[in-house]
C-alpha cells in the first residue's frame, strides 16, 4: 500500500498517510495528493487507490465528504470553476537578497539568494505548466530561503556596525588615556 502526501486547505504539505489514514483526514475529492511513482500531484479522486474513499463506502470508515465549493475556491487549486492565482513568487525579494550582500562585502551570502531565485523561477514555471501544487511548494521554499538570506544579511550588517562602534570607543578611550599620560 502506498503512502501519500496531500496539500491541506492552507497550502501546506502533509504526510505521509496510508489510504485508510487519508480517509480520517479532512481530504476531499479535489484535494491534491502525491505518492512515490507519480509524476505530479493529482486530485484524490483521480488516484485509483483513493477513489474508493469517495464512493461513500462505509467499510472504509469515511465520513460523508461533501466537497465545499467555497473552500475549493478559497484554496485556488485546480478546480475547474475557480481561476487559480499564482502563488507569491518571491522574485523581487530573492533578487534583492542576492544583490545587496555584494555591497557589504559578504558575497558568499549571495549563494543563499541564488537558491531563493531558483525556487522563485520554479514558481512561475510550474504555475504556467498548470502544476499548482508544485508552484505552491516552490513558493514556500523560495520564501524560506529568502528569509534565511535576509536574516543572515541583517545580522551581518548589525555585526559590522557594532564592530565599528566598539572600535570607536576603543580608539577614543586610548586617545583619552594618552592625554591623561601626557598631562
Amino acid at each position: 500500500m502506498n503512502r501519500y502526501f496531500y496539500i491541506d486547505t492552507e497550502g501546506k504539505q502533509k504526510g505521509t498517510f496510508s489510504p485508510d489514514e487519508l480517509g480520517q483526514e479532512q481530504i476531499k475529492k479535489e484535494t491534491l495528493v502525491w505518492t512515490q511513482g507519480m509524476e505530479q500531484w493529482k486530485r484524490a479522486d483521480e488516484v485509483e487507490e483513493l477513489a474508493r474513499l469517495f464512493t461513500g463506502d462505509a467499510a472504509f470508515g469515511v465520513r460523508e465528504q461533501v466537497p465545499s465549493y467555497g473552500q475549493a475556491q478559497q484554496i485556488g487549486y485546480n478546480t475547474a470553476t475557480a481561476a487559480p492565482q499564482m502563488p507569491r513568487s518571491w522574485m523581487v525579494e530573492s533578487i534583492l537578497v542576492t544583490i545587496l550582500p555584494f555591497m557589504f562585502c559578504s558575497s558568499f551570502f549571495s549563494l543563499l539568494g541564488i537558491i531563493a531565485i531558483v525556487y522563485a523561477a520554479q514558481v512561475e514555471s510550474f504555475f504556467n505548466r498548470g502544476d499548482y501544487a508544485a508552484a505552491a511548494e516552490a513558493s514556500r521554499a523560495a520564501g524560506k530561503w529568502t528569509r534565511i538570506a535576509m536574516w543572515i544579511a541583517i545580522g551581518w550588517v548589525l555585526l559590522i556596525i557594532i564592530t565599528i562602534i566598539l572600535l570607536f570607543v576603543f580608539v577614543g578611550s586610548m586617545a583619552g588615556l594618552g592625554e591623561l599620560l601626557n598631562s
Partner: protein
Amino acid sequence: MVKKIVKRGIVTLLLLLLPVVLFLFYSFDPATDPFFPLCPFRMATGLECPGCGSQRAIHSLLHFDLGSALNYNLLMVLALPYILLGVWLEWLGGGQHYPQLPRIFFGKWSALVVLLFVLSFWIGRNIF
C-alpha cells in the same frame, strides 16, 4: 498576528539601519578609512568579486561624484535603480498600478539575465 508583528519589526529595523549605514558611508571614505568590512573573496584569491568597490561607490555617490562611483563599481551604480524599482513595485504599490512591470523586470528570464550580467561583470573586471 505574530507574523505581522515580526514583519513590522523587520521593516522598522531596516528603516532604522538605513540612515545609520548612509551616515557611516557619507562621513567616512572606505578607500582610506580602515574599519570597513573587507571582501573575503578578494582576501582569499586576490581577485575582485562583483561587489568590490561598491562601498567606495556608495561613498562617492553620496558626495555626488558619479564619475568615480562608476569607476569603483559600475555594476552597483547600475543596480541601484533596479533595486529601487523592485522596492517600489513590491512594497510601495507600484506592482498594483502596473502589473506588467514585475513580469518584465522580475520574471524568470530577467532573473537569469541579472545573474548572467553579474557573472560576466565578475569575469570581465578581472580580465580587463
